[in-house]
């Protein structure tokens, strides 16, 4: 497998060109440290060429999961299957998986070119082939002319690029990235995010990307895996994760939210919309994500930017509430209004400048949302 990949690449003038990324399957993966389960049973399928992010707070098991895939950590139970081959017990050097470490892990005593050539030497490629590939990889990350530099002579962003180039130069079946941008400042991070997206698109590689930055996960991924306490909390496209969170944990971890507690008034209609009674007597609408067996105590989640000021449009009648504004923060592209709903629960609104004007002037007003923008979730006692 490895060999054929390599020779295939050589016929294309040094680079590996576009490859068909491998497919990855994790089956009931577990990893325990003493009595603590770092990974407590993770199932996940990553399709060929897919970009999947593992998103979660520290201690959620995302990095451990990545280390198990790379073979740097042992799984206590479960299987890692790459291209239908069980690699669970393989040593890391046999797996043909590329890893970009958080600290980049560039070899400080080797030049950029030597760093890039390292995996090629391990594969015993001939000199010409190595030269061609190193050139190709440097072009890939736009670092032509940096061959002779040492890692310490590069900026953080350049080091990060070398680390990526080194992890893809041998055409691995899978690329793992462990918070590769977390050490960089915000501006550079945005820039490199774009580069990683492009690289993924151009190479067709399968990528598993670990991050605790929800914005990064949403903007880079085909699918996002939200992890919590060593388990998968939800898997979905960025839009599904943001607009249709399964749990309060996901809603709170990804983006900002307003929460309103209430009681479910009845089963959802054909389009999935249900009515919720709030303590003050008001009734609001949202798409129900409540499992049938979980009782009638629920909460309605509305993202701050889905709240509008004024009288609701015809389709949204029945989803309006009074709010009182206590603070206004100008954020550039929007105005953040903070206050509380008529129920006493705190509220955040992201409004356009004009929309915010009347609220700011009066300090109070009416807000509404479209039924499909509200999400009804079960109440989690532990979240």
């Amino acid at each position, binding site marked *: 497998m490895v060999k054929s990949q390599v020779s295939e690449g050589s016929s294309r003038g040094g680079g590996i060109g576009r490859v068909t990324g491998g497919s990855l399957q994790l089956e009931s993966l577990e990893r325990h440290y003493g009595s603590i389960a770092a990974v407590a049973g993770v199932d996940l399928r990553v399709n060929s060429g897919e970009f999947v992010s593992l998103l979660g707070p520290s201690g959620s098991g995302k990095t451990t999961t990545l280390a198990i895939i790379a*073979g740097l950590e042992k799984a206590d139970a479960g299987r890692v299957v790459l291209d239908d081959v069980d690699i669970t017990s393989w040593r890391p050097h046999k797996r043909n998986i590329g890893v970009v470490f958080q600290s980049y892990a560039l070899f400080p005593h080797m030049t950029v070119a030597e760093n890039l050539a390292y995996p090629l030497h391990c594969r015993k490629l001939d000199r010409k082939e190595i030269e061609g590939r190193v050139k190709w990889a440097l072009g890939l990350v736009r670092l032509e002319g940096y061959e002779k530099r*040492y890692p310490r*002579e590069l900026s953080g962003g350049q080091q990060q690029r070398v680390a990526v180039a*080194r992890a893809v130069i041998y055409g691995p079946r899978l690329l793992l990235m462990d918070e590769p941008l977390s050490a960089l400042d915000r501006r550079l991070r945005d820039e490199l995010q774009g580069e990683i997206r492009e690289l993924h698109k151009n190479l067709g590689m399968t990528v598993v990307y670990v991050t605790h930055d929800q914005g990064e996960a949403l903007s880079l991924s085909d699918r996002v895996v939200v992890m919590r306490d060593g388990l998968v909390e939800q898997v979905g496209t960025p839009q599904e994760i943001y607009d249709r969170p399964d749990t309060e944990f996901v809603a709170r971890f990804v983006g900002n939210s307003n929460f309103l507690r209430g009681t479910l008034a009845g089963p959802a209609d054909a389009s999935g919309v249900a009515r919720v009674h709030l303590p003050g007597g008001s009734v609001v609408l949202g798409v129900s994500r409540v499992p049938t067996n979980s009782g009638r105590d629920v909460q309605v989640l509305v993202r701050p930017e889905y709240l509008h000021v004024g009288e609701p449009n015809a389709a949204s009648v029945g989803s309006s509430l009074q709010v009182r504004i206590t603070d206004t923060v100008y954020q550039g592209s929007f105005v953040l209004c903070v206050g509380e709903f008529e129920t006493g629960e705190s509220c955040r609104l992201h409004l356009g400048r004009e929309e915010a004007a009347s609220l700011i002037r009066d300090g109070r007003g009416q807000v509404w949302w479209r039924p499909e923008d509200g999400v009804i979730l079960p109440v989690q006692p532990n979240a």
Partner: protein
Amino acid sequence: MDRIGRIALWVVAAAVLAFLLAPAILVLPMSLNSSPFLVFPPPGYTFSWFGQFFASPEWMAALQRSGEVALGVVLLSVLLGLTAAYALTRSRRQRFMPLVEPLVTLPMIVPSLIFAVGVYIVAIRLHLLGGLWIVVLGQAVLAIPFVLLNLRAALQTIDPRLEEAAWTLGSKRIASFVRITLPLMVPALIASAVLAAVLSLDETVFALFMTPDTAPTLPVLMYRNIQYNLNPLVPVAAAVMVFATGLVGGVGGFAYWLARRRLGSGRGSASMLNQDLISQSTADEVASDGEVAGV
């Protein structure tokens, strides 16, 4: 006030330096003493004792023996110290490590006389006396704590992820260690070798007990000469030892400096003697001359 303080500091520093260096420097004029008795100051100077020293088969054999023993001690202690340091810093089975460290560094605390007597008693029982190799073994035990601490400090500054990265890139464990971690440890290895060599060259107590009567190392032969007939060759031997130690330190220091320069980065290069104290300043120094070193 400030001025007086500064002068006082200089005086104290000079006094300490003199106290440390004077004995070593004093042997030089003594070894050139024209009198056959050890009188100071020497009435005149001559190189004849040096001539006698280098012509004496007894002294030359002792010098060679010391060299051989030192070489053996360096190889053994660095090899064992390296494996121990690696296990202490990188092993995933850390359960017994808290026990290993004090055990391995114990020889640093145990008085060498007690250690020597203990080994002597056991060695007599087992009929192990009579070879230089037991001196090598014993001195290596004495050197290992220093080597271990030095190498461990170096390993602690090398990111373990480097080796893991090498694994994922396709190289086996041993190859990764040899190609990634070991080159980064070269300065610390040199420093450790120098430490072990210097330690062995002037180690007397253990060697006194263990060396065969007919085959003493240089310090042992010196001691015997001092004990029975203080002859003018002893200061010559002392001068030769000072010179040899200086040579080892000098060559080692130069090699260390070269290796650090080549590596450029502060990583993995423990300072010659005390990693913790000096590492910060060397890191700064490296940061400032990194560009020069890299070109």
